[in-house]
């Protein structure tokens, strides 16, 4: 593998995978702490028709129309869940399941019937992601990393994800204390004059944005693993707010780097010229990391005969 190949193919795809995983894990950290992990699952499915409409109306894969469409779809989904729960007196899990699968079905049909014939957004992208198409073909060698003209041609997906991560991270840092209080004790937050509802809405919005910007890279279903696994693993390793986020992001980055490397370079070790699905591999590694965290917890607590974890 030459340096140029690495710069043209693996660097942009690997960095895109890394930022997609980090963005999802960052939003997922707060969803998991709020016990709303399935909101990530529901959102990632329910926003699909909105993404398709945004895409069809704008005719491009630019992030903004798709995010606006996704936001509209998320609002419709939340309203429908509320109506199904209230009028049908149905438990929340079933209401969520009904609404997000039906909206996902609508999105798939719209994709097949409308978009597939015009441009290159198709159900495969929804299911598997399209990391393999993220390329930086203008790179000619290491000097391209310092060449403004070449850097300006970095893949759009990568740039969008990197900017989203920086913005979300800055927001988390800025409102660190407020998010913390409104996550753990919304009533105390209100008493202190912190608008807990706005932060709650903000976390949901961040999850929706994370889903949409990661959608092209890793698809609608694999994002669920990126949202839930690193944060859930971190929950097993620490019970403190600050380290929780740090460990979540560290584990997410580990899953992304190891997963990408295994998918891209692993088959070569066995003499195969083909590569494997990097998005799928990252989701798998995220699951394995959660499994290891669970095993570590069991080992650490096996010595103590505590009734609490029955």
């Amino acid at each position, binding site marked *: 593998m030459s340096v140029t190949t690495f710069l043209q193919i693996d660097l942009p795809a690997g960095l895109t995978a890394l930022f997609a995983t980090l963005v999802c894990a960052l939003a997922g950290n707060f969803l998991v702490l709020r016990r709303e992990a399935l909101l990530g699952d529901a959102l990632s499915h329910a926003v699909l028709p909105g993404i398709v409409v945004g895409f069809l109306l704008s005719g491009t894969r630019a992030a903004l129309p798709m995010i606006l469409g996704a936001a509209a779809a998320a609002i419709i989904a939340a309203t429908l869940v509320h109506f199904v729960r209230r009028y049908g*007196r149905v438990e929340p899990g079933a209401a969520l*399941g009904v609404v997000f699968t*039906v909206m996902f079905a609508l999105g798939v049909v719209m994709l097949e019937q409308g978009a597939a014939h015009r441009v290159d957004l198709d159900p495969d992208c929804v299911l598997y992601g399209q990391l393999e198409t993220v390329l930086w073909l203008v790179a000619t060698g290491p000097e391209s990393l310092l060449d403004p003209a070449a850097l300006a041609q970095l893949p759009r997906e990568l740039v969008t994800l990197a900017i989203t991560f920086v913005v979300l991270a800055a927001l988390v840092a800025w409102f660190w204390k407020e998010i913390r209080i409104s996550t753990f004790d919304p009533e105390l937050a209100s008493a202190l004059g912190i608008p807990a509802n706005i932060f709650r809405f903000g976390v949901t919005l961040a999850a929706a944005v994370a889903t949409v910007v990661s959608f092209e890279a890793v698809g609608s279903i694999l994002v669920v693993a990126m949202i839930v696994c690193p944060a859930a693993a971190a929950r097993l390793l620490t019970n403190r707010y600050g380290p929780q986020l740090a460990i979540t992001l560290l584990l997410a980055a580990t899953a992304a780097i190891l997963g990408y490397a295994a998918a891209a370079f692993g088959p070569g070790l066995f003499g195969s010229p083909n590569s494997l699905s990097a998005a*799928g591999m990252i*989701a798998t590694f995220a699951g394995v990391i959660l499994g290891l965290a669970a095993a570590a917890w069991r080992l650490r607590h096996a010595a103590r005969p505590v009734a609490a974890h029955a």
Partner: protein
Amino acid sequence: MSLALSEALTRLFDVLTLQAGYNANTVIAGTAVLGAAAGGVGTFVFLRGRALISDALSHATLPGIVLAFLAGAAIGIETRSLPLLLAGATATGLIGVALMHALTRLPRVTEDSAIGAVLGSFFGLGVVLLSYVQNLPLAGQAGLHHFLLGQAAAMARSEAITIAVLAAFALAVVLYFFKEFRLVAFDRDFAAGLGWPVARIDLAMAGLGVAITVIGLQTVGLVMIVALLVVPPVAARFWSNDVRTIALLAGIFGALSAYIGAAASYALSDMPTGAAIVLAAGVFAIAGLLFAPRRGVIGVALSALRFRLELARVRWLARIAGGEAAPHAGPLPSLYLRATGLLDVSGRPTARALRDAPAAARNLSLWLAAITRRPEAVPVGARFGVDPVHAVLPRDLLDEIEGRAA
């Protein structure tokens, strides 16, 4: 464009009326049987709150499908063997559920985290395995991705018949054990008190859910199969409170959705069967949400409006009984009073209004007494001021307020 549309509609009509050929008819009819069974089984998946667990299970079948295909290829079966693939699907699906339960037993891992983690990472492993298989020179690997979104048209007649027979068997089990399932779903403790093997009955309900998930994989696809289990019962829920009616309606909705969806995917190009079926089921759910007489949005709004108007009528009559000659009512209530023959065109109460006024006034004052003295004794759903107190209030409360009013 319009020509293409009319052609598509003609084709859809042909398929829906079973004129599309023997193979298509068998597949569509088999899918309808699957839909009926899914509705019946799904009623208990829904009642036991297992919708999201089923979603994790169905996503966790993907690695098993691909591994079974690889295992088949290793021992010389190069084409897709449905029983083998479904066995693999069941295996990893159940491993996924077992891991999910193991995770939930740890502290600080909530059930929804465990569901999401298993769903996402097992699906990821499946995607990796799919990407591996796609580069192998094996016949039959091209059909594997149909297990994701479902493709009825890719099914052979024999496969459709197998699926229909298995689904019919699952439906027969639900019908045979209906009484047991219903009681365990609603009142476990009572069922246990009767000496029933509650845990085994519950396991049977869960097992039937797994069975439908697995046999529906090829038609509906693993991404949306949970909807075939859960959407029909939720749609049925709007129309009834009775489990038998819900199960019956869910079976009918499931069968119709499956039939329409499978036909649509045959007739229209680029229409994944699973998405078409789920969308059809979604139409039933939306119809229930909007139009069901007692639970639907429109029905609830209309009965609220009717209550408002009837209460306005009662208050108006009470004012007449209190001595007012022509009390003023709002514009909408006035229309209502006119339509019900209580108000004449000159804006004066009719003879009927004068006749009805004392009884309405007495009923209203008894209601006021009841609601101020013992609001907790008023039955839920009784309409204040409107329903006759003697028909809706309990005996002891009536005695109390009538004694006081007298």
